[in-house]
């Protein structure tokens, strides 16, 4: 009992689990953009960083309550998302990917060179406002929101764009407008995740939000299973916890992490839960149970 309690209150574990939650919020934002709407974004970490810096600066300079600076972080990221999305969402596939990749690098370089963000040495003096309960409350809220969006007229329009943009357009869907809306929501959520991150680490450095981080988010969503909320959760949990649990193998850590990803792609090319509709599986299972009860 004491051992269990020890693990539960171990600050290191709490920190790790909180970080998983924060990453998950951002990953859910990318899930809407890439998994549901089918638009590849290689610059998701940049939106997280915009949210992180914006909320941190609002807290430091305006002394607003954390709730408001979190909102400010989300809105700042969404604004960047819309400004980037408006010209670039006309592009598709690889081209959009390259544009977002470029945007991610620009944001990083801007933060390195701005005085107000503390430049390359980073931004310090952010008060600690984030805790595990707040993070998971936001996680639950985000999952709930994504679930509702997916199962609505709006969400169906987004999936239609992913499946076949030309057909979607002839069904009366304005693809640019809907992609832009998806981008705005996805980047807003990324900004919220950034705010939580800033107010947990109490320190921000542009190096934390580079291309590698963007790619990690994409891994969470793709390896979990594109278009699946449970997949995104599972992908984020496994891929963010693996490097922590692999610490005991020391220098082989990233090697095993890489091997893990390759294995996952070989055995589940559509992601862990890609193409699996949990509700459908449950429904089939229930029907089978019923059928078995009827036969004898």
């Amino acid at each position, binding site marked *: 009992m004491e051992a269990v309690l020890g693990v539960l209150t171990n600050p290191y574990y709490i920190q790790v689990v909180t970080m998983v939650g924060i990453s998950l919020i951002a990953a859910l934002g990318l899930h809407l953009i890439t998994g549901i709407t089918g638009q590849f974004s290689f610059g998701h970490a940049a939106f997280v960083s915009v949210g992180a810096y914006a909320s941190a600066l609002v807290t430091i300079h305006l002394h607003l309550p954390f709730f408001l600076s979190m909102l400010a972080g989300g809105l700042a990221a969404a604004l960047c998302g819309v400004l980037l999305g408006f010209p670039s969402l006309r592009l598709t596939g690889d081209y959009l990917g390259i544009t977002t990749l470029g945007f991610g690098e620009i944001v990083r370089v801007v933060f390195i060179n701005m005085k107000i963000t503390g430049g390359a040495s980073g931004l310090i003096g952010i008060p600690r406002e984030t805790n595990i309960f707040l993070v998971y409350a936001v996680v639950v809220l985000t999952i709930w*929101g994504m679930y*509702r*969006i997916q*199962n*609505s*007229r*709006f*969400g*169906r*329009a987004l*999936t*239609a764009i992913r*499946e*076949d943009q*030309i*057909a*979607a*357009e*002839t*069904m*009366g*869907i*304005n*693809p640019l407008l809907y992609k832009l*809306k998806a981008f705005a*929501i996805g980047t807003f959520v990324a900004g919220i995740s950034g705010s939580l991150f800033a107010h947990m680490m109490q320190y921000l450095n542009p190096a934390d939000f580079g291309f590698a981080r963007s790619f990690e988010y994409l891994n969470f969503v793709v390896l979990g299973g594109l278009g699946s909320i449970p997949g995104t959760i599972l992908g984020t949990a496994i891929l963010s916890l693996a490097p922590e649990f692999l610490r005991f193998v020391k220098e082989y850590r990233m090697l095993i992490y890489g091997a893990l990803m390759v294995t996952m792609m070989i055995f589940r090319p559509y992601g862990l839960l890609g*193409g699996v509709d949990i509700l459908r599986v449950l429904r089939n299972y229930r029907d089978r149970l019923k059928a078995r009860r009827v036969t004898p």
Partner: protein
Amino acid sequence: MSALLELKNITICFGGLVAVNGVSLEVREGEVVALIGPNGAGKSTIFNVITGIYPPTSGKVLFRDKDITGLKPYAITDRGIARTFQNIRLFKNLSVLDNVKIGCHCRGRAGIFGALSRHPGVKTEEKVMRDKSLKAMDIVDLTGKKDELAKNLSYGEQRRLEIARALASEPVLLLLDEPAAGMNPQEKQTLMQMVQRIRRIGITIFLVEHDMKFVMSLSDRVDVLDYGSKIASGSPSEIQRDAQVIAAYLGKEVV
């Protein structure tokens, strides 16, 4: 009867290639009109111009006496023109019902806040959409397959699903691009009955088709294209006797 859809002198060039050359034609309300012609005559191109996939190089498209030339596809659907595609374009990984529900899109209003709040108005709208979708699926006999994924349907069913999806947008004019392509005689027979059924609802039909039996028994009027130009127009029996049409399909005698 006045013209529901009118093409005036439509010309479309792709680079140096003139795909459609000064074609004028009209579809009147309540008719079934067929557009035929050898491969590459420009039939699908004309459909793509009507539905706004690309704008014509010159000429005008009038729908209910209003100019719709160069409007975006989603705006055209909103005004009451729906279509199917020659190479099936379904939302493959979605259920049959969801495919048809997406067809209802332009008749709904709920947005992001509706999705999140699910207030009573949104719930009613969803219910109305569901009922409308089921009705559209009923017309093409797909109600029993509503939870199936679109990609798991047979070829004939996929073609019918495309029609149901188009019907869900409550069109005034339905464009069918080679609806019978690749179907066996039985499937063609059912399709013909379905087209009749759609016509009885009061929807005007404009179709491109290669199957002559299908075209001749269904349509009130036939327009014939060859090398991008209209070479004939008239009732099915007139078209069957037209010398130019016979030449286009079978070739001319070389003197």
